[in-house]
């Protein structure tokens, strides 16, 4: 243990005395406060906060990733190249202890730098509302949508139902010989599915659509200052003249209406909105609208007096607060740390058998693949049968080994939208990224290094 610690301290000293570390530290120290001053976003306080944290976290993550890659690929390969390792491995230290020590040193550096810079970013974020001259409504919005930690419940389409209906339609069409001969079954089905799904989603003028949410548990639901949020986007069958939709929403225990107006106990809130289509909107209602058993209903009424076209409310989501911003921010930082640790593992594992320039190249490639991995996996998933075979045999295991840094694994999205990164999600990600993928690579690296002749000069 003492030897791991000795190597970790040495690696830390080496990293801190490297020029690249100084450059990264200096860049972040200058850029972060500067960004907090010049970034405006869409002009609102919320926009400013979102833009600043998004770019700030992105910048910290990117620079520290590059620093981690540089140091992790440099430290062991340089020891080998400059033969410093002669004086280390001949001492009572096992080879795996040397690797673990190096890794520990880099992780400590990452924790140190990430801690410092995320604290600076946090401080700036907290400071922005205080020094910005924004109206109260914007401050309220910023508090409700940014300085919070919310969980969203999405409505799901009843896919089985739509599939059944599509098949039914297909049979009807077939029996009446209306199937075009040049179209395959799959293509017809997919078109029918889209049509049926549209039927389920659309709200024609004069009609009402209702969504039910169950088991919604909000802390301090009786507090009038606790809110729940409804988030949605409008599509329309035909574009309205002013690109706007007038929506009448009701949020609360809608079951009460069916039982009779006399039995209404929990409040039902009516919300009227006129908003442009194709943009995500959000409104808040007090959380006491939730019934005692955790039920809450949302209804949308398409009034004939206000709209002339069928409206399709999409991506409807009910959001409610589960924690505070600070804890959520901390989890976002931890998610970046998972990323950094994984890169450090890869960097060191690679240099057990690759030279510095090759290892750095491979590492950077892995990093950028990680940044677009979700996209790549989706894209390759859609290729044809033959290519799909090759893909699933060769490429898929390889891509599986590579990390995923984008999509749901990107902490920026959560912080910008004020959404909760759940501990369970964070733990699974860390477990999977580090203990499965990372450990596998680390063990491979240790195995190679154990057998390596460190004094061997490459011809």
């Amino acid at each position: 243990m003492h030897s791991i610690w000795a190597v970790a301290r040495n690696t830390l000293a080496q990293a801190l005395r490297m020029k690249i570390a100084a450059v990264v530290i200096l860049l972040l120290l200058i850029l972060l406060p500067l960004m907090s001053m010049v970034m405006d976003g869409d002009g609102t306080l919320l926009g400013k906060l979102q833009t600043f944290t998004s770019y700030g976290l992105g910048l910290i993550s990117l620079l520290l990733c590059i620093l981690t890659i540089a140091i992790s690929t440099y430290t062991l390969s340089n020891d080998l190249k400059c033969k410093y390792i002669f004086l280390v491995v001949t001492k009572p230290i096992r080879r795996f202890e040397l690797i673990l020590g190096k890794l520990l040193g880099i992780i400590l550096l990452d924790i140190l730098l990430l801690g410092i810079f995320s604290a600076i970013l946090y401080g700036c974020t907290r400071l922005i509302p205080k020094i910005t001259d924004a109206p109260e409504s914007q401050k309220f919005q910023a508090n409700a949508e940014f300085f919070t930690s919310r969980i969203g419940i999405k409505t799901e389409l009843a896919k089985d139902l739509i599939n059944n209906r599509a098949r039914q339609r297909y049979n009807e069409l077939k029996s009446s010989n209306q199937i075009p001969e040049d179209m395959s079954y799959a293509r017809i089905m997919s078109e029918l599915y889209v049509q049926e799904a549209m039927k389920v989603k659309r709200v024609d003028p004069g009609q009402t659509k209702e969504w039910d949410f169950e088991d919604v548990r909000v802390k301090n639901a009786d507090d009038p200052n606790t809110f729940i949020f409804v988030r949605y986007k409008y599509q329309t069958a035909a574009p309205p003249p002013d690109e706007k939709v007038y929506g009448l929403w009701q949020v609360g225990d809608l079951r009460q209406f069916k039982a009779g107006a006399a039995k209404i106990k929990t409040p039902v809130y009516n919300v009227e909105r006129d908003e442009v289509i194709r943009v995500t909107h959000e409104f808040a209602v007090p959380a006491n609208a939730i019934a005692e058993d955790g039920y809450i209903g949302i209804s949308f009424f398409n009034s004939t007096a206000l709209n002339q076209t069928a409206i399709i409310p999409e991506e409807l989501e009910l959001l409610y607060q589960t924690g505070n911003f600070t804890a959520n921010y901390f989890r976002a930082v931890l998610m970046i740390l998972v990323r950094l640790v994984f890169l450090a593992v890869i960097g060191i594992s690679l240099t057990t058998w690759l030279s510095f320039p090759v290892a750095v190249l491979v590492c950077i490639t892995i990093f950028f693949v990680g940044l677009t991995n979700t996209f790549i996996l989706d894209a390759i998933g859609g290729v044809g049968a033959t290519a799909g075979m090759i893909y699933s045999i060769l490429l898929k295991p390889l891509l599986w080994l590579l990390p995923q840094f984008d999509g749901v694994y990107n902490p920026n999205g959560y912080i910008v939208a004020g959404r909760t990164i759940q501990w369970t999600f964070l733990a699974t990600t860390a477990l999977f990224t580090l203990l499965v993928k990372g450990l596998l690579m680390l063990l491979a690296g240790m195995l190679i290094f154990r057998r390596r002749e460190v004094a061997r000069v490459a011809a």
Partner: protein
Amino acid sequence: MVTTENQYAIETISLTKIFPDWWGRAKVIAVEDLNLQVLQNEIYGFLGPNGSGKTTTIKMLLNLLHPTKGASFVFGGSVDSPAISGRIGYLPEESYLYRYLTARETLDFYGRIFGLPADIRKARIETLLEMVGLSGMGNRQIATFSKGMARRIGLAQALINDPDLLILDEPTSGMDPMGTRQIKDLFVELARRGKTILLCSHLLADVEDVCDRIGILYGGRMQVEGTVRQLLQQKDEMQMRTGQLSGRALEQIKRIVSSEGSPIDIEKPMDKLESFFIKVVAKARQEKQRTSGVEAGTGISGFLAEKPVVQHENILDKLVGAHPQKGPEEPEKSDRVEATKSPPVSQTQPPEADYGLLQQLTRQKTEAPLPSTETVQKEPEKPSVKKDILDDLIRKKSSGSTEITQPEKKEDTENA
């Protein structure tokens, strides 16, 4: 410190190393069927011209290279085991030290790997820095050091664990003659304390002075092996050393020798250049001549004379924790802890380092006067120093003493 389970500190059994080319064909046979046996508590001189396989052998001993064939054992086991590598001190052919660390941090780093407790580590670092003459430069980065200075730190790191076996590859390369001399004395002192030293060098004078046994390697094969005396003594010649003699006496001697039927050759003995160099520098120091810059380089011997306390006891005793005469100011704690680590060595033998000369070499003119009580302590000690290099040097010239020795062959292994 001496293991009972194996009489050899180092043993190799038909150790072979072949470096293949890219296609896997044998390209260079660096070491071939080497059976090296180094006994415990001996100084073994491992000689050979450049590229003869010395360093490759050492690297195989230390598991930096894997043998193509054969096996090597250190203290009867593999250096992979921390229990064995913890007993080895290794100085490679160049001082491969982390350039960004300071001298003190370097020693601290290696001390930590050995798992030395903080107090012992700290004490040893200071003692070692002092011993190699770099105590004033402990906080300077290795990158700013000259080759010789880096070499000294390299030697200090090899000693930090108080090793039972020292494997040294060209230890004196880049060092000035005083440093070389001091290191040679150190080896003798270490051997006296039961340590084993594998000294790999092609500076023959160094090897000749200190080694018990030598082996000469050429082309990866052991050419000759034996004790220095066995190998170098000329059985059929005698050499006589006397003070200044009158012409009459010389004539008489010549007559006696020629009556024995033996040829005779009389000439004045020459100083070795090393001795001469040390004498000149010592004299200049005594006269307090001005020097620019080199003070740092020659500071090597400063470790003993700097502090009177250190002067009375052997620096090595401090290192290994066995104090022949315990210094009054020695901290109790580290003494106790250290002593448990290694059994005390011959309590009766007084230290034999060359304090007299070292003192003369290193007394700095800028140094503040020592406290009077300590100076008093120091003065009467001087004559009691037994083996003084200066005495040794002067004795060669002093009249009245006569020595008869068998001359030793001049080594010339380069042509071996």
